[in-house]
């Protein structure tokens, strides 16, 4: 028994020793900084105590921000904010957007987060739907209502836009030169057979901003046309990445030549010195990146101060940093921007071509993602095989006037473009409920009760696979005709 306790105590001894070790490290390397911080904290505590006693409100204390933004961006803002309000300590926690949402949802019972700060408006919609955002409307002046055709702030006031971004195409100049390819200008250029195997994009289910690009295409060209265009672009993909940053990463490395990316990935890659270029096509949507106060935020006042700070001229200017490069929402800031910096408030060609219907997009959000994954992400190899057969047939056809072959090729193309679902059904609110996550009451799903998402997807998958292989056959028949 004694031995048992000895081993146990040794174990704890090691544990405590290791813990002390940690503080040893701290004291050795961080003593000065920590002391200063600690003193500051104690001071702040005292001051805030007195302030509290005299019921005055002071700009002090802590501020906890959960963000999907990289350190290059969040760090700059944190430093600038702390310089302006030296009594507030900002704690930035970086998480992927999806992980951030899960984190805030899971921790809401005991919330310690003040602000959620991320790009995709749909992420904020999810939080808003779960009643996890508190209303706040900033009083900072000079911010317009719209950027492109998209409202900068949430109309209901739950989150605030502080920067804008739009999708475009980014390419690696060395790659294009080595492969003798021109840089694309419009989305449809990427459907050209010369780009076969040279392009890439991230899946809309993985990245809210990619989703908006797909949705913009669907709204700009119509549901059926838009999907057809999307698929003919996708057939050229070398890859559909799971992370949105996977696309600029691949283009920067030269893994593939052209990628569909959000502007700041392209602009900041240029800013970091990579041999890449970036262009906005005519059909693009400018979307605000947002920030919102979390319900029951422990430091709500500081959270609101931070939002105000983002919108002030000094906050907006930080966005122009070569490693950040996002479009400010304050039109005056552009006066300080570098020469070739795009200005959506002046250049009306950016992001104004499509009148973006937010409600339509919201209603079929998950369905569009799922449809994209079933038809493109998970079946990319099949799609590519079908398209490559069609390309071969077209090449052989050339300028020949063979009506039968032409017809077969057109049929093959139609098979590839065909959708397993009609537009009406895709927009049907009842059908979309199959793809929503929370269905507490049975009456929520009356019409399609008992239909499961997995079931629907399996059906789609069968349809899509069947069509792709039929398309290959048609194309091969066409080749035989020639």
């Amino acid at each position, binding site marked *: 028994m004694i031995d048992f306790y000895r081993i146990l105590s040794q174990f704890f001894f090691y544990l405590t020793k290791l813990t002390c070790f940690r503080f040893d490290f701290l004291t050795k390397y961080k003593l000065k900084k920590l002391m200063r911080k600690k003193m500051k904290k104690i001071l702040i505590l005292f001051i805030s105590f007195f302030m509290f006693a005299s019921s005055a409100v002071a700009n002090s204390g802590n501020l906890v921000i959960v963000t999907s933004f990289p350190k290059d961006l969040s760090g700059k803002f944190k430093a600038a904010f702390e310089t302006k309000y030296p009594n507030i300590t900002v704690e930035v926690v970086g998480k992927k957007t999806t992980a951030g949402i899960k984190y805030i949802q899971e921790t809401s019972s005991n919330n310690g987060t003040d602000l959620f700060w991320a790009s995709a408006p749909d992420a904020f919609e999810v939080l808003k739907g779960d009643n996890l955002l508190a209303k706040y409307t900033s009083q900072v002046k000079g911010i317009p209502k719209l950027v492109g055709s998209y409202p900068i702030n949430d109309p209901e006031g739950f989150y605030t836009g502080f920067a804008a971004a739009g999708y475009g195409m980014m390419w690696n100049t060395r790659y294009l030169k080595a492969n003798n390819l021109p840089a694309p200008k419009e989305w449809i250029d990427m459907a050209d057979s010369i780009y076969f195997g040279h392009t890439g994009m991230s899946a809309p289910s993985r990245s809210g901003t990619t989703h908006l690009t797909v949705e913009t295409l669907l709204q700009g060209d119509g549901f059926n046309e838009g999907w057809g265009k999307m698929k003919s672009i996708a057939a050229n993909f070398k890859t559909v990445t799971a992370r949105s940053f996977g696309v600029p990463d691949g283009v920067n*490395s030269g893994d593939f030549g052209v990628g569909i990316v959000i502007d700041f990935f392209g602009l900041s890659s240029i800013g970091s010195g990579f041999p890449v270029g970036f262009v906005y096509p005519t059909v693009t949507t400018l979307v605000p990146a947002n920030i919102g106060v979390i319900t029951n935020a422990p430091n709500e006042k500081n959270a609101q101060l931070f939002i105000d700070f983002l919108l002030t001229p000094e906050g907006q200017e930080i966005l122009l940093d070569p490693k950040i490069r996002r479009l400010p929402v304050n039109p005056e800031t552009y006066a300080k921007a570098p020469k070739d910096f795009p200005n959506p408030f002046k250049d009306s060609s950016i992001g104004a071509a499509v009148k973006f219907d937010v409600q339509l997009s919201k209603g079929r959000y998950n369905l569009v993602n799922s449809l994209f994954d079933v038809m493109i992400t998970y079946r990319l190899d099949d799609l590519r095989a079908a398209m490559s057969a069609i390309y071969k047939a077209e090449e052989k056809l050339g300028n020949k006037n063979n009506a039968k072959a032409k017809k077969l090729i057109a049929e093959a193309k139609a098979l590839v473009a065909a959708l397993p679902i009609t537009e009406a059904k895709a927009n049907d609110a009842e059908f979309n409920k199959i793809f929503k996550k929370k269905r507490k009451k049975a009456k929520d799903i009356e019409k399609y009760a008992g239909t499961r998402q997995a079931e629907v997807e399996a059906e789609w998958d069968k349809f899509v696979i069947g069509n792709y292989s039929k398309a290959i056959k048609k194309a091969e028949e066409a080749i035989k005709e020639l």
Partner: protein
Amino acid sequence: MFKNFFLKSTALFIALFLLIFLAVPIFQVFYVSFLDQNGHFTLLNFYDFFQNALFIESFYNSFYVASMSVVLASVFALPLAYFTSRFNFRGSVIIQSLGFIPLIMPPFVGAVAMKLLFGSNGSINLILNDWFGFKIPFMEGLNGVIFVESIHYFPFILINLITSLNNIDRTMEESAQSLGSKGFGLFRRIVLPLSMPGYVAGASLVFLKVFDDLGTPLLLDVNNMLAPQAYLRISSIGINDPMGYVIGVILVLTSIAAVYVAKLALGGKDYSMLQKGGGGMIKRDFLPYQKYLAYFVVFVILFLVLSPHIALTLLSFGTIWSFSVIPDAFTVQHYKAVFENSVFIKNTMLYCSIAAFIDVVLAFFISYIVLRTKIIGRQLLDYIAMSALAIPGLVLGIGYLRTFYSINLPWDNTPLASWWFMIVIILAVRRLPYALRACNAVLMQISKYLEESAESLGAQKISIFRKILIPLMTGGLLAGFITSFSTATVELSATIMLVSTESEAPLAYAIYSYMQTAAGRGPGAAFGLIGVLIVAIGTYLSQLIIEKKYKQRGMEAKV
């Protein structure tokens, strides 16, 4: 009386630990897979799984990739293990340590480095294309996954094999030799069977890891495998489709089945050796031509498996590396960021060493209980601990948040889930299987007669542990520690859910946050390289300790 009480209470303690920190959090997440749309119990979701062509194809792909990776990993591991432990091979300690490094592939940077080297426009293919006009699709499709996974995980086989070989009692070999056995016969009849437990342990680990691995297929954008399918479904924005969790359950079940099959393969045979002569096999000298051939093979393999780290080094010193064989220019700027943020390194060292220590202690007791006692449910302990291997880190992270967030720490009223020690625990739970397999393999080779005779001489359990088992198992324990420690240093998927402040974040998290920007690639690589160096030095030192121990026991006889 005492013996039973001690072991039973230990078993109970371990069971409780696994229940609280593994089973409950997983259950919190997985029960979703048994619910229908109205929240009632159903098995329909599993029916859907087997109805979906994509899922079946994914299952097949995962199985194929995992099996092929075991084969390719064995091709890498066998020569390294055999040459270095069988022959007097100069630098065998260095080679054995270096062979361990591929396991430490920092998240994101590792993949970027691999792509820059082996990708379709990576250095190798650019050179091939320039000189010979063709390219090799190293990184395309399922074969790409197999290639990367077997480079990444072959050390599991290597380490376990080396431990086994070093534990072979040399008297076995000597008696076989004196009975006239030699050459291949000796290898087949003595060396091969005796090293089987180590090989099977390593191979099953490789199989499991590859089967469940998420990072590699995701970064190679291969979606038609089970783990990526589960991940993509769980982590899509605003959607909570039960299929993700169903796939998770299927992953866990398959992994448990794999462990069971590995057990069956070893079952019914006694691999223990009465006399713990140690020292491993008799070391031989090479014939001259053999020597050059062996060095050649070893260096080719080493070059291949270390190439990701060579690329990582280039990346961390390079300025811009894009569509070219090597970076445009070199700089040390990126390391400045590392030294300005050294807190990440300290955190990682602290978290991972505590976690690995917990792992070794738990693994020692679990393998003892499983192999040496008759406590009811002891096998279950093993399976539950091993199942951690099959739980996607993301799922475990979410489970921890669900389970521990509503509990507050008594002293400062912050949630338990955001306490830094929870990161240590989640790392320990996730890496426990590694330490467990290592302990299991060594303990299997120690004859239980040693303990029984000590017991009959009146020794207590504790002194048996201290004087017999622990010294004899040092190699295995240390191997377990190093494996757990070093793989924990690059763990990201589970910890990213739990990190609540940047000042308490580990290294992998820093790499992640740097790798999300175009300008962060260099600093990210620099962080990755520092992590790799720490692990490399640690491994080398522990190798030295093991070597020294054998020397002290006077086992340096040369034949």
